[in-house]
């Protein structure tokens, strides 16, 4: 019987004595199509964004970067340099000027995906930007990107462009607070008013409850980054105008004008002190720079 017990491991050993030739692992052919002849555009993106900041920009079509059931189209090649230059001017250069290149390189999202069209939703609305995990930012409607220096620019085109900056500032705000959390008091300012129904709420109704945008009502974190992005993109003046636009009377939820305005001001103060204490960034100075760049592009 003991012999048996010996034989079985012996068999197993023999069974396993295979020498597998893995072939040349240095050169796996893959499925092809992942490389292409570099164009001047590829070179520009590489030199301007990849080398200094380790940021990749994917403009060639890959449906798997998007929702798989959405009809979308790739961007026009001639739009990519204007879009990325504007982003560099408004978002990158301003943060670098205030917080330094090291800060920016450490925390910036590293992967930009571009879509030529907007993403149309079932309810008739369109999505202009999304982001995932502090790494990937998806920008839509690149094909309609127009600034005042480009032919055919109308003042109404500014909404698209501002929305694009809003998305980026929003996502970068997420990265910052996910790295170091904002003070917990922020969550108490509008406690009880957060709702999953934000998409049915108008801008003005949200403001009357003390939120800067309807989307800010969806969660604490969104509230915080919507504050950051709206304040940066609209500038000090624009934000003051939003606060002052709240009419007399009480909102549906019973918030008075004074309460709503004070909530927005409290949030503003908290954002400013968060940027100063955590990141040593003078928020108002960053705001001035950002808005100045936007003004130069659009007005």
């Amino acid at each position: 019987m003991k012999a048996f017990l010996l034989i079985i491991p012996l068999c197993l050993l023999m069974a396993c004595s295979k020498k597998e030739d893995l072939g040349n692992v240095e050169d796996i052919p893959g499925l092809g199509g992942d490389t292409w002849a570099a164009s001047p555009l590829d070179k520009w993106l590489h030199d301007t964004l990849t080398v200094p900041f380790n940021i990749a920009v994917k403009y060639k079509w890959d449906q798997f970067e998007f929702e798989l059931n959405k009809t979308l189209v790739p961007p026009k090649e001639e739009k990519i340099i204007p879009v990325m230059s504007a982003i560099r001017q408004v978002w990158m250069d301003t943060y670098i000027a205030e917080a330094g290149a090291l800060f920016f390189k450490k925390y910036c999202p590293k992967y930009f995906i571009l879509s030529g069209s907007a993403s149309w939703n079932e309810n008739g609305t369109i999505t202009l930007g999304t982001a995932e995990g502090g790494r990937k930012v998806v920008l839509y409607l690149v094909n309609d990107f127009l600034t005042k220096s480009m032919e055919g620019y109308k003042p109404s085109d500014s909404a698209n462009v501002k929305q694009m900056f809003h998305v980026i500032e929003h996502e970068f705000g997420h990265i910052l607070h996910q790295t170091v959390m904002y003070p917990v008091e922020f969550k108490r300012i509008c406690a009880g008013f957060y709702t999953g129904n934000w998409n049915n709420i108008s801008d003005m109704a949200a403001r009357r409850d003390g939120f800067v945008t309807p989307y800010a009502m969806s969660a604490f974190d969104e509230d915080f980054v919507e504050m950051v992005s709206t304040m940066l993109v609209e500038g000090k003046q624009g934000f003051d105008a939003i606060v002052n636009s709240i009419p007399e009377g009480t909102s549906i939820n019973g918030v008075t004008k004074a309460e709503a305005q004070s909530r927005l001001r409290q949030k503003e103060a908290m954002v400013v002190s968060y940027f100063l204490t955590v990141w040593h960034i003078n928020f108002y100075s960053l705001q001035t720079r950002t808005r100045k760049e936007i003004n130069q592009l659009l007005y």
Partner: protein
Amino acid sequence: MRNNLICLFFIITGMFACKKETDPLFDKSPDERINDTLARYQQVLTTAPYGWKAFVYPAGVPGSVFGFYFSFSDANRVQMFSDFDAASTGTMRESSWRLKALQQPCLLFDTYSYLHVLSDPDAGQNGGQYGQGLGSDFEFAINGAAGDTVWLTGRFHGSKAILVKATPQDKDNYFQHRINRSVDSISAILTYFHKFTTAGNRYDIRINPYLHQVNFTWISNGKVKQASTGYVYTATGISLMPAFTDSTITINSFDQVKWENGAITFTVNGKPAAIAETVTPLAIDAAAPKRWYQYALQNESYWATYYGFHVNGKDDACGITGLPAYAFLTYYPQIDGPGTSLDLLGFVVKQETGGNVISYGPGYDAPTFTSDGRIIFNDNGLYGNLPADRTAINKTRSLMADPMGFYLVQTSSLTYDMVSARDGKSWINWQGF
């Protein structure tokens, strides 16, 4: 003895468990073979000396077909023309392409080009549906290549496309701007109905230059027949795909197309042909006016239009969209409820409090239906709180009161076009609910 046998069994099992050679069915690995296939397609596409003609059939618009010219380079660049509109026919546009194995060998057009215009979810680019466009594709699985042809199927919507090796002539037609778009002048023929005559045959013809579709109506043995086909633009005119055929004639193409003297003239199978204006259609849907009227009546509802009358090629010819707080225009039979006598061409006005209200408009007694399929509206005065400037209302009212009346053409289950029987040059597109 038994133990020895068992021992032997184990030893043999152990030895054979190690048999390592597998006989591959193919001489190369799947990766290598897919790369070989891609390389072969790459070679096929880039070595066509005069580029490729392409025909794309968007899955979202059955029957439509669009013509393209592609010239692929080895540096992942493609030069392109498309017969989608005049600009894309006249201006070459360069974008990028590549081959990739996405379960199948695929041909990808990976930056925006004329091909993507058909897929753009912004319907403003192509006249399709918002969020869908024309349901076309820009990533294609390669079904196969043989001789001069490559067959493709779209990966997203399943559109079909065919590439055919271009001749020097095909290439020149695009690069030298010889594509003939005279058929587009059909929009300058101001009547609603268009008459197409050739070799003793007469048809009513509708051409949709946006969707590249032609619709024929004719009478055969006393019966009304209809057929639709797609078309692409060529150097001589248009090529019907597939060809149109009835019992007497097969039409592959309209050649030597010209716009002259208010008509489109051309040749069909070498014989002269023309598309010209006509007031009366070949086939009148005599029951349509009653059907149109009864539908609204039975549903206690109305027919609506935004622009009102289109006259002599001009939308909103009466200027009604400029009326104060204008929302839309309705025709409301028996507006005071079933069995009452007043029909109203009701102008709907936006309210400050939100919502819309029918505020004013000309009223009518019950309409007259003629046996030859016309509806005549019997004006009996203006009703409601009229705005100060009544020009647009009066213009609309006088057009409606035409004693010749109107034909009705049902264009879908809930849309009708109401066409003037006097000159065929004014009409309203009605939308039901």
